[in-house]
């Protein structure tokens, strides 16, 4: 049983490496801001040092800029031929200029700006994810603490977590009889598994040293929970939360395509039906950026909350 939990952690560990890889690429993007800010705040007297700093900044900024430029160029070239089906980057910008410069227009119904579409999707994700965090950590603590609960719930979790998010949609539509709660439920059920599993692994991995400290100090159940268990398991919990937010954002687009209404997923579906491919490309860029920022947000919160806990 224990090995099952650990194996699963490995599975999610593979998922956890993805954010780590994202972290390095973000660092590459985020770092140039810091040196330039520093050199702006206090101009260094030594021109040699300034030159070095500029070179370092260039070494960090240039690779992503160059690669992105090459990517856009290739894209433009491949789509500029006569019979090209997909729009190139310049075409996308021309077609969607109205959408880009007016993110907050509201002509009623589904015809609202991109910002409203994204906010509608984010709202659903916020509800579903918040529920998944509360329930996931709760169940994770239960499964991590009690061998009986783990043996009972583990088979259930193992089977349910492999169900694809959209497979839940029909059953939740039937249960809730409304589209919005169904979408929220899909987010919930998608995001909860990595949270449960990582939390329970975190609880099971609490060092015997800390348990002994708690026993010598005679901490009661509540004190143990708040002073030892939560902080000790926090790094694991946050890696679960981070995988969870990624999955939630992946699921929302697909779910919204089916339920309709305002939301970035249905915007994409609507644009497809109207053959507005440039709108779809713009939406994909926005989805990617929002997903990226959600991941960073959870990572930053996690880093702040778990500061110090990694060290022995």
């Amino acid at each position: 049983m224990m090995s099952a939990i650990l194996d699963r952690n490995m599975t999610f560990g593979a998922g956890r490496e993805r954010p780590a890889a994202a972290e390095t690429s973000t660092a590459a993007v985020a770092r140039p801001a810091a040196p330039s800010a520093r050199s702006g705040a206090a101009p260094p007297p030594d021109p040699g040092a300034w030159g070095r700093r500029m070179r370092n900044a260039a070494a960090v900024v240039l690779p992503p800029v160059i690669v992105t430029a090459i990517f856009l160029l290739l894209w433009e070239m491949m789509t500029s031929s006569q019979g090209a089906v997909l729009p190139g980057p310049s075409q996308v910008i021309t077609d969607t200029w109205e959408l880009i410069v007016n993110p907050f227009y509201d002509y009623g119904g589904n015809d609202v700006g991109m910002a409203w579409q994204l906010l509608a999707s984010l709202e659903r994700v916020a509800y579903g994810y918040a529920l998944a965090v509360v329930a996931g950590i709760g169940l994770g603590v239960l499964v991590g603490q009690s061998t009986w609960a783990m043996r009972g719930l583990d088979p259930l979790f193992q089977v349910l977590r492999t169900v694809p998010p959209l497979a839940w949609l029909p059953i939740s539509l039937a249960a809730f009889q409304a589209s919005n709660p169904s979408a929220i439920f899909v987010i919930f059920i998608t995001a909860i598994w990595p949270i449960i599993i990582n939390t329970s692994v975190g609880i099971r991995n609490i060092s015997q040293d800390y348990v002994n400290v708690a026993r010598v100090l005679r901490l009661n159940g509540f004190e143990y929970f708040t002073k030892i268990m939560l902080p000790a398991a926090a790094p694991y919990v946050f890696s679960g939360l981070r995988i969870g937010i990624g999955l939630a954002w992946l699921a929302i687009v697909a779910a919204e395509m089916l339920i309709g209404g305002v939301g970035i997923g249905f915007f994409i579906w609507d644009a497809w039906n109207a053959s507005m491919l440039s709108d779809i490309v713009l939406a994909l860029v926005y989805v990617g950026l929002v997903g990226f920022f959600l991941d960073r947000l959870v990572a930053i919160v996690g880093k702040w909350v778990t500061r110090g806990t990694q060290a022995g």
Partner: protein
Amino acid sequence: MTSYLSIEHIHKTFGEGPTASEVLRDVDLHVDRGEFISIIGHSGCGKSTVLNIVAGLLETSTGAVILDGKEVSKPGPDRSVVFQNHSLLPWLTVRDNVALAVDKTFKGTKSAAERREWVLQTLDMVGMSHALDKRPDEISGGMKQRVGIARALAMEPKVLLMDEPFGALDALTRAHLQDEVMRIQSELGNTVLMVTHDVDEAVLLSDRIVMMTNGPAATIGEILEIDLPKPRERLAMADNAQYNHYRAEVLRFLHERHKNPESEAA
């Protein structure tokens, strides 16, 4: 007969049936108030098991531990532990690590202000006043163990239990902390039970050295009384014939056991 801490004929067996292993056999030890006792022996001889039983972290199979007239079977604030790897909570500052123990122990008896003051006082005693708001990962190994000692002392235990407290430190830091422990123990008069595998440490600090035979089924081989006046000076001891005699005694015991580990089991 009525000693302060009595370890009464304890046996400890881990596991059951054919896989059971007898770790301790008939360990019997009586400690007076204010005594400093070291338990020394080869790795795996069960000396830490004795300490954990006194701490209440392990239960005896048979036998009992009696402290100040009361039997102890689970952990309590009257027996605080200094762990080998310091075991500070990494998410709390130095101050909060000690405060957790102080608040828990003196909730009903000291006011919040008194408890705060007591935390500062104990950290001052181990020379850690300069790092109150640092987290464990920001201070050195020796400093962590100072905080670990402060946390244990802050509970004002009847017995201070130390499980190879300096084992993970470099030689210089270790010597320094040993001196500190000697000073604090002479000031406060604590009763101390320390597990160690360092012969010099045992002879320098102890009133009596309990030498354990090799496991399985380890027991007390000999008890050596260290009749050297306190306070003891590390440098003076190096040339002290009596000190070197005690040192040789302990070494001889450990060496003989090492050569012939079966001698006691037979």
